């Protein structure tokens, strides 16, 4: 198992370096950063002065090295817009996004996996149909619309939950449901398909022939094998959720990192965008790595390959 983990870790680091280089290059892809910083009215000399001041005149690789060195220490420079250190700007927002992401994926898994298993145990039953309906509806319904429906129903009509903000756990309930529901259909279907396939396999027949009860057959023998691809999918979804919850964050006015990214792109606030892209990618890479490790733990065949 250890060689496998080390190999995957090496791969993850390589990907991370590549991604960091790309996000660093953004600064240059979007035009001359010195000109942008100096402002529209600046003269050629002013621009040159800014270029020297910020070190844009040095070779790109040197700049990248220094930027990376700073980034690793949590130092992402100063926001063009807020004139504040990017890291302090991001820190609060990130905790909102992470809370939401963790709650969202947990909600998705807790609903999708049992539903997928139940649907596979009795294909074409009522449960299977309900599950299918929920998953089609989940895919057809835009998040912002679902979010608004929940707000109208539970915040405005019934008054049970706060419509927006992030000041208590109750503020997270509706965003969690909306975000989780977005990830649920794919997880549910993969669980169902995996279970159906596994339940038809010879080793399930063997388990029954041993005299194992249905619960044991379903959970110990079948789900354990069917869940393997679900783990990878959930990790990918988690990665998306941490970066891509912009819609949910805006609907519920939860000021998280996704929302910040969206604002910063609009404001051309490059250091902030760079830092967020780097952080989102790292999440993505870390979750994929964790999924690989978890998969290897679940599937012994993978460890040796």
């Amino acid at each position: 198992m250890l060689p496998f983990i080390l190999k995957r870790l090496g791969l993850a680091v390589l990907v991370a370096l590549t991604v960091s280089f790309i996000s660093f290059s953004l600064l240059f892809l979007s035009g001359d950063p010195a000109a942008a910083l100096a402002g529209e009215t600046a003269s050629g000399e002013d621009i040159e002065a800014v270029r020297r001041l910020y070190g844009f005149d040095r070779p790109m690789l040197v700049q990248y090295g220094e930027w990376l060195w700073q980034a690793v220490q949590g130092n992402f420079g100063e926001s063009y817009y807020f004139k504040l250190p990017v890291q302090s700007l991001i820190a609060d927002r990130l905790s909102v996004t992470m809370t939401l992401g963790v709650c969202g994926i947990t909600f998705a898994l807790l609903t999708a996996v049992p539903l997928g298993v139940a649907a596979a145990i009795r294909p074409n039953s009522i449960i299977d149909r309900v599950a299918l309906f929920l998953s089609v509806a989940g895919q057809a319904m835009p998040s912002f619309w679902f979010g608004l429906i929940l707000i109208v129903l539970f915040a405005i009509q019934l008054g049970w939950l706060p419509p927006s903000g992030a000041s208590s756990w109750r503020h997270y309930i509706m965003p969690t449901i909306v975000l989780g529901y977005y990830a649920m259909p794919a997880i549910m279907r993969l669980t169902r398909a995996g279970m159906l396939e596994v339940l038809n396999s010879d080793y399930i027949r063997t388990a029954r022939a041993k005299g194992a009860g249905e619960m044991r057959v379903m959970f110990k023998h079948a789900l354990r094998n069917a869940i393997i691809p679900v783990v990878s999918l959930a990790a990918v979804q988690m990665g998306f959720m941490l970066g891509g919850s912009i819609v949910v964050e805006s609907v519920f006015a939860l000021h998280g990192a996704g929302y910040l990214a969206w604002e910063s792109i609009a404001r051309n606030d490059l250091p902030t965008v760079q830092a967020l892209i780097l952080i989102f990618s790292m999440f993505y890479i870390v979750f994929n790595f964790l999924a690989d490790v978890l998969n290897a733990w679940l599937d012994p065949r993978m460890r040796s390959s």
Partner: protein
Amino acid sequence: MNDMTKPLLSVRGLTLDIPMSNGTLHAVRALDFDLHRGETLCIVGESGSGKSLTSLAVIGLLEKNIRRNATQMNFDGTDLLTASKKQMRALRGNRIAMIFQEPMTSLNPAYTIGDQLIEALRLHKNVSREKARNRAIELLEKVGITAAASRLGQYPHQLSGGLRQRVVIAMALMCEPELIIADEPTTALDVTIQAQILSLLVDLTREMDVAMILITHDLGVVARVADKVGVMYAGELVESGPAADVFGKPLHPYTRGLLRCIPQPGKTERGAALGTIPGIVPSLIGDVKGCAFRTRCPHAVEACRDAIPERGEPPHKFLCVHPDGARAAEGEPA
């Protein structure tokens, strides 16, 4: 003590119907057989003749869409027809063990050999993991696996097909069953190890005095190990009886066709497959009347379209309109 004359397993009139889109498939029809303690019953017959369905019917693992009917199905005093799910579970893997054809896929890829062997015992017996582990090692050694203790930590994908089937055999023996049903246990294996694994299975069942239903295509094996033989054709047991009688005086034309395709015991080569008899098997969907073999039988007459009487002197029985199974017509001694 057990009543030695009372069969361990007794089946009468076993019938399996499968509803299909174009009618009912009468896959198995009115099967009768008995098996005593320690006996080996070999079931032979072409692909699709209903051998696997019959074995699954005994342990109650038929797919849900298959309808099972019988006038009697008794395992050592337990009525298998009325037994609850719980009672069947208590029998399966404990008193009746099953070995399937596909060793490559019969073991769960996610668990170690040890886990799966230990589970087989602990599902039925209240023993510690440590004791179960020792039993697993003992049985792995018995099935000829070296370094048994270290194998316990291995996963199925780390073993060859032959080794996996040995593990499956060890697993079947964990609870000291009284009956083992082995459905073509070696067909999927390399020809060179088929004979080894089969001898192992036969030797162990003899040594442990376990009754066995062995489904196989290998008539050489049947000649060597069977106490009783059942010949299936298109869902019926067309001939059954003590091995010596069936081999010595095959009464059903189909049985003789099969035997003609292979050399006699002694001269029989191991691994010789069933020969092929020209012709096609009729559809078993809808009303099935008369002898299903008549489309291929050289002795078929008009009466073969009607109900076929059961003939022979028990325990050697066969189904044919001809009182001698047309032995005379083939110039065989009466």
